[in-house]
């Protein structure tokens, strides 16, 4: 059974590329795999045959199965087009594809395709709303109209990492074939150096309590809430430091807020870093904060990395995050009291190392039960049966 595997690959700035880079190693041990991706410069091309997606049509008959990774950004245009032409198994990483469709239609001046897609996915309501949007009289309903139907219809089976996405697919097509495969935990690398050495390397104080956030600073990551909560916590913990490891997206400038909160000397933004540095910071982290609201049910590769390392993590009580078991993470509802509750949880975890250790141990166990080899086996089973 030979597999054609469609996905963005590193260094593309999307979590799905990192997901595929890890999964492919395990999957290739169980079945022959060829990758179709437009990220031809990827280091993965040293290990696997990587072909441009445009070549697939001419080679389609060489493969027994097709596996498409779809997400809600501009990286998936060619993958989606191939899926519609050559149906196969689809891994749906997001519960809405609306941003993806807006990018490939309206943002390129193609209003007609946007209206057609909205009509296909959401009938008369979709048509009316799309017309209003094209006229400039309505805001984008990113979450109300998720535009999943065409992908679900083209899929021989849809793979979801969360119950939230599974439910979104069912609401599109009640009879859709769906498989639930949990997001695997990335193998946790050992710490490269002693804590004191890493602290020195990053010019952080020797005696410090490190709160960190990881991943890009973008809309929905609640960066303001995170910083306000840290500022509140830091008033009672003079040794605490905050690090945000990840790229800033667009014009999301937080420096005025940092200035206003008076925590400039205790906050650091590293920008995008390589994997090894990312893990160095994770090893140093005493408590991580990873918020997401609104969310369409997407799983977080960053959180799975943190759990594998046993880092106590505070997350939003929404979507996939809300499905994580009790004790593994601390969940905070978005909205009223959010800042105060995060600060209170930070204080509780900072002053109770035993609770922190228990949380870390539970997180590691949760991650260990979701190894990449197990995920690969589940993918093989799904592909064999569909």
């Amino acid at each position, binding site marked *: 059974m030979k597999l054609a595997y469609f996905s963005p690959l590193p260094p593309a700035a999307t979590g799905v590329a990192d997901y595929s880079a890890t999964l492919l190693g395990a999957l290739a041990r169980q079945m022959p795999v060829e990758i179709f991706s437009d990220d031809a410069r990827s280091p993965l091309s040293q290990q696997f045959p990587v072909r441009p997606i445009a070549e697939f049509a001419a080679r389609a008959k060489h493969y027994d199965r097709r596996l498409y990774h779809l997400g809600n950004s501009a990286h998936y245009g060619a993958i989606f087009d191939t899926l519609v032409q050559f149906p196969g198994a689809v891994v749906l990483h997001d519960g809405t594809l609306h941003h993806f469709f807006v990018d490939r239609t309206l943002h390129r001046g193609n209003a007609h395709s946007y209206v057609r897609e909205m009509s296909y996915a959401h009938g008369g309501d979709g048509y009316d709303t799309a017309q209003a949007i094209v006229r400039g009289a309505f*805001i984008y309903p990113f979450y109300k109209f998720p535009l999943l139907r065409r992908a679900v219809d083209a899929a021989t089976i849809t793979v979801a990492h969360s119950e939230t996405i599974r439910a979104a697919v069912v609401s599109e097509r009640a009879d859709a074939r769906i498989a639930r495969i949990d997001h695997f935990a990335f193998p946790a690398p050992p710490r490269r150096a002693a804590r004191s050495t890493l602290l020195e390397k990053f010019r952080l104080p020797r005696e410090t309590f490190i709160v960190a956030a990881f991943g890009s600073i973008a*809309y929905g990551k609640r960066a303001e809430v995170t910083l306000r909560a840290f500022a509140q916590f830091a008033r009672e913990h003079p040794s605490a430091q905050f690090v945000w490891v990840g790229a800033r997206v667009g014009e999301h400038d937080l420096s005025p807020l940092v200035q206003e909160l008076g925590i400039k000397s205790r906050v650091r933004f590293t920008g995008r870093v390589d994997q090894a540095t990312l893990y160095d910071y994770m090893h140093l982290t005493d408590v991580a904060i990873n918020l997401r609201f609104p969310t369409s049910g997407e799983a977080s590769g960053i959180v799975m990395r943190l759990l594998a390392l046993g880092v106590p993590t505070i997350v939003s009580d929404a979507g996939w995050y809300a499905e994580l078991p009790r*004790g593994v993470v601390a969940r905070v509802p978005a*909205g009223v009291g959010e800042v*105060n*509750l995060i600060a209170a*949880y930070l204080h*509780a975890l900072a002053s*109770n190392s035993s609770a922190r250790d228990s949380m870390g*141990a539970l997180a590691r166990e949760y991650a260990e039960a979701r190894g990449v080899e197990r995920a690969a086996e589940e993918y093989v089973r799904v592909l064999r049966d569909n």
Partner: protein
Amino acid sequence: MGADPRVLKVEAALRQARERLAVSSAEGSDDAALYLPHLQRSLKIVQRYAAVESDAPFVSQLPLIAPLVVRGKTFARRVLRGSLRGAFGSQAEFNAAVAEILFEFTRRAAVAQNPPPTPANRVNSFEATCQPDSRDPVLGAVLRDLMQEIAALRESTRAANLSAAEAERAVAELRRELEQLKHSAE
């Protein structure tokens, strides 16, 4: 089989944090005021944004346009739209953010009118206010109405080419709702 003792330990630590927070909230730390300046500033920007999007009289946009050295109304509006999107994201994202602040502010104000009456149930009351719907049926109904109002305001900002005056009216209505809520609580 009993629950994992480590889960119980973590839950106990988090519960203690909530209790500590509930007591400090009940002792009068009201951070609703923190939101007010942001809300007022955001509403002002919403009104200006709506004025630009709805091609309101050019003069009303002068405070924003003055720094831009451009020729012609059409070109100025195009640059202005671009700079607003650059500064605040798409209008949908910006409106959603403002609606969220408005939503939090109104709920916070409503919660402030119904503080936990006795130390014994402070924790329960706090947890109730953390939920999307309050356990108090009357307050819950009011909050739901307000949420609908806000959702409608957000949707209609663009749908109706909302003018600055209309935005003012919508906000004034919400404020009246809050006043009524305050009186009924008293």
